[in-house]
């Protein structure tokens, strides 16, 4: 079926050019990260060629740095609470948007998704002014409130396609058999939605953990992990440490997200609800 379309889609030369461009772009995307990794193991405080030798000194220094560890703990706290809030609010919004007929649906979804396009600096300033006006002390709670705003659209975007694929007849059957709406939700919808909820939680967690613009304005005396890294950039000798830590976080977040995605697919397959098309291209 695909053969004629493939012919019209590209010529042989065109295919070569396109795959060449693909390789160039992949190199462009990965080379900077690879270089960073390389220098994190280089025995030199400056990120310069020629390489001097292999060392894990930067990683050991990181492990021994209490301020840095404290900032990681702070960020983990903020991210775990904020992503829980974002998933709960996103779930409510997603159910309402998918399953109900609503007046002003597009206005509601526009507001809910707006943090995707509004520059973070504007959101950050708004929160700063707001908290200042109400004399709310800045700290972990204000960070959580801000990060929930940023993460809500992402949780909605993950949950909505999943809800749309959920067979509504399962819920209707439960209702016909006498289950109340909450029972139906708890026993039918929630379990079927669980993999997507986990995905949403992880994406929101990573977003919050990594966020720096809003954090920079509503943190008060609290230092989150990205803010700590940023503050250390002023001291060039600390650069290898910063790079090392950043590499650890990079590896952890990629593993976490890929692991979650694989886990989600395995679970969904087992539930027999795996869609015929993979989630990325279901538009």
């Amino acid at each position, binding site marked *: 079926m695909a053969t004629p379309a493939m012919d*019209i889609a590209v010529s042989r030369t065109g295919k070569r050019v396109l795959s060449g461009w693909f390789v160039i772009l992949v190199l462009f995307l990965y080379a900077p990260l690879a270089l960073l990794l390389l220098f994190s193991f280089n025995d030199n405080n400056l*990120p*310069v060629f020629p390489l001097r030798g292999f060392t894990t000194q930067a990683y050991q220094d990181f492990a021994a740095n209490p301020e840095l560890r404290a900032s990681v703990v702070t960020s983990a706290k903020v991210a775990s609470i904020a992503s829980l809030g974002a998933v709960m609010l996103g779930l409510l919004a997603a159910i309402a948007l998918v399953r109900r007929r609503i007046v002003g649906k597009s206005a509601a979804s526009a507001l809910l998704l707006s943090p*995707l396009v509004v520059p973070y600096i*504007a959101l950050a300033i708004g929160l700063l002014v*707001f908290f200042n006006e109400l004399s709310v002390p800045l700290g972990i709670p204000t960070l959580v409130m801000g990060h929930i705003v940023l993460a809500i659209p992402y949780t909605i975007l993950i949950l909505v396609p999943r809800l749309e694929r959920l067979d509504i007849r399962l819920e209707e059957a439960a209702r016909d058999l006498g289950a109340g709406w909450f029972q139906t939700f708890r026993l039918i919808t929630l379990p079927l939605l669980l993999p997507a909820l986990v995905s949403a939680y992880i994406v929101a967690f990573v977003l919050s953990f990594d966020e720096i613009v809003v954090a920079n304005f509503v943190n008060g005396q609290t230092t989150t992990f990205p803010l700590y890294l940023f503050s250390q950039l002023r001291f060039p000798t600390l650069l290898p440490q910063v790079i090392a830590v950043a590499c650890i976080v990079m590896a952890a977040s990629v593993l976490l997200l890929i692991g979650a995605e694989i886990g989600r697919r395995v679970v969904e397959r087992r539930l027999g609800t795996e869609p015929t098309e993979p989630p990325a291209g279901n538009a």
Partner: protein
Amino acid sequence: MAVEARKIEATAPAPGTAARPRAGLVTTTLLAPPLLWLGVFFLVPVVLIFLYSVNVFAFFPGTQAFTLDAWKNFLDGSPFLDLFWKSIWMSLLVSVVAVVAAYPIAYYIALIASKRKYVLLLLILAPFLVSYFLRLLAWRVILGDQGPINSLLYETGIRDEGDPVRMLYTQWAVILTLIYVYIPFVALPIFASLEALDRRLLEAASDLGASRWQAFRKVTLPLSLPGVIAAFIFVFIPTIGEYFTPVVVGGVEGTMFGNAIADQFGQSLNWLNGSVLSFFLLVVVAVLMSIFARFLTVRRVATG
């Protein structure tokens, strides 16, 4: 993601999911908490910013009184307005280059790479999952006077030590880094629209005697335009207010509008001015969104 964003709005009440009798009340209960959250932590702050910008609220108590002076100063050829146009120009360049660079990749993955499609897509998207700060850090290191590129130039004798090629702390560093950051993000909606393309249309074009170029120009490109526009919007609009990238790699020369806002609320402690700049940015974003959203809707109707 962008495509799905539009999809939510496009979701008409399908026959099977039509509202049940009690839906009204339940829906209100369901939507109230998330809407309330965004209302309190996004809309109310926006109103506050506006009130600060006309000095109805002020940072120093006792000095508040309605005035449009700050707005007049800003709109009357202030350096901040120049900075705004510079930011628009930079964002435009970033989003156009990112879209042009990512389109062939999305095309390749969606229409040519048949079996390994999702592996290749993941390969392109994965860098987006990597910490934003880390990706900025990578370019700060690479472009630095004491970075790998310059040290390589010294080492090979192309440049003398102490005479580095100045790359960091320029606006080009900001532009390059932003393009780097956004390419994966741009590839996704374009891929989604190309993936949804009905291949039989291409076959039909071919049967009717269209050349490859004609088929692309008359069928593929127009049908993928919603994805392209979505991608463009999702880069162009947020980057107008970009703040952190210029801080890390831009220096003085690479300053953007977002940095001016941050400075007014930080070092300069001029909340009046800062609120004018912030509210102006929000208005620009709202106007651009409404323009593009309308265009997206028209496309959707036009392409069925």
